[in-house]
């Protein structure tokens, strides 16, 4: 249902939902060129900030500050959490429901404390 137009290498996506605040505006039009957002229509300043900066400062897989293969970072995370006697899982408010469900499943498995931004 998303109208995607190819025009001079620019992909236009309509009816985009803004993942910034809980107003969750769902009428944004996003222009993308070379995997960068070049134009945001209908969005507020905050929305523009999210999309226009989205290609910058991507995180890299690291352990103790050193870049490592992805699987090694995941393995190290599993090792840390398996060894923990009182883990904390925090966040969830800025990702989607599938990830939230997985956080709860993990917390259940390892007997963690689990909290989101509601309590802050």
């Amino acid at each position, binding site marked *: 249902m998303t109208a995607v137009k190819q025009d001079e290498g620019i992909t236009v996506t309509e009816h985009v939902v803004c993942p910034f605040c809980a107003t*969750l*505006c769902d009428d944004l039009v996003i222009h993308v060129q070379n995997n960068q957002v070049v134009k945001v229509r209908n969005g507020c300043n905050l929305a523009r900030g999210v999309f226009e900066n989205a290609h910058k400062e991507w995180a890299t897989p690291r352990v103790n500050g050193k870049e490592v293969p992805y699987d090694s970072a995941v393995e190290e*995370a599993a090792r840390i959490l398996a060894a923990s006697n009182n883990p904390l899982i925090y966040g969830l408010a800025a990702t989607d429901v599938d990830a939230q469900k997985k956080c709860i499943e993990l917390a259940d498995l390892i007997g963690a404390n689990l909290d989101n931004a509601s309590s802050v």
Partner: protein
Amino acid sequence: MVALQLGGAPAATLGEVKNRADLVIFWGSNPAESHPRHFTRYSGSAKGRMNPRGRKDRYIVLVDIRPTPSVKYADEFIQIKPGHDYEVLTAMRMLTNGNRPDMDSVGDVAIQTLERLVQRCKDARLGVLFFGQGITETRGKHQNSMAIYQFGKDMSRHSKFLTLPMRGHYNVVGSGNTMCWQTGYPFAVNFGRGYPQFNPGEFSVVDLLKRKEPDAALIVAAEPMDHLPYEAARHLENIPTIVLDPRETLTTKMADVVIPVKHAGVSVEGTAYRMDHIPIKMRSVLNSPWPKDDEPLSTIIARIKAIRKEEAET
């Protein structure tokens, strides 16, 4: 959240505000800066079934401790003394219930002003009170929200009236909902005994970290080093901390393990819940080389199960 647990609330989806509300009050909320399009899409200039002229069909009141950029969108600004929201709401509840407070003003607001506001609420076709962090983070905290909900319930005896929180993070409502259907509780849950226990203060993030109780942390799509009080966040520097985030943040820079993931709503689809609990499916506009965050989480779950099995066998 706690306030809802104490007594419930009269609420609705935002389309009700768009279609019917002729009185909108913002209390401790500055939508012009925190939720810039709330006003045009739902609560201010939005046109709807009973509000064909949009802004002209609504009376808008702003209540805050100081003038904010939102004042210029309001018909009336009521300035109250910092930390006195609860007292002002108590007086408004009295006026709603037919009792006049024995004083000229409360929290620096003249009783006459409150009387007028209460009368407007009673006369409204649909009155709506939106409240924000200005009220939930000042003295009284969740009891202030409770007072708002109680005012809404009192007012429901006279007119159609709604009380709605202005939630911050785009899917904080989703996290509360998901936790609630899987654990029974919307936040502050502990699984230490093999089942969910709930107790804000005892199991909420700031208190846990201040008391230095966790011995490892997994941070998913949050920036505690930026958003939490430092006396809480600094405990993360002393324990193994894992962060899942699309981008570098203060927290990833401090973390022991960084796992990059796709950015929900930017580089991957997924569901988010709006502040009025309506779920919407987010779209994806960029490509990312990393997996969606539930994938590494699933791998971690599988790995821990395997580690447990190995331990049990040896």
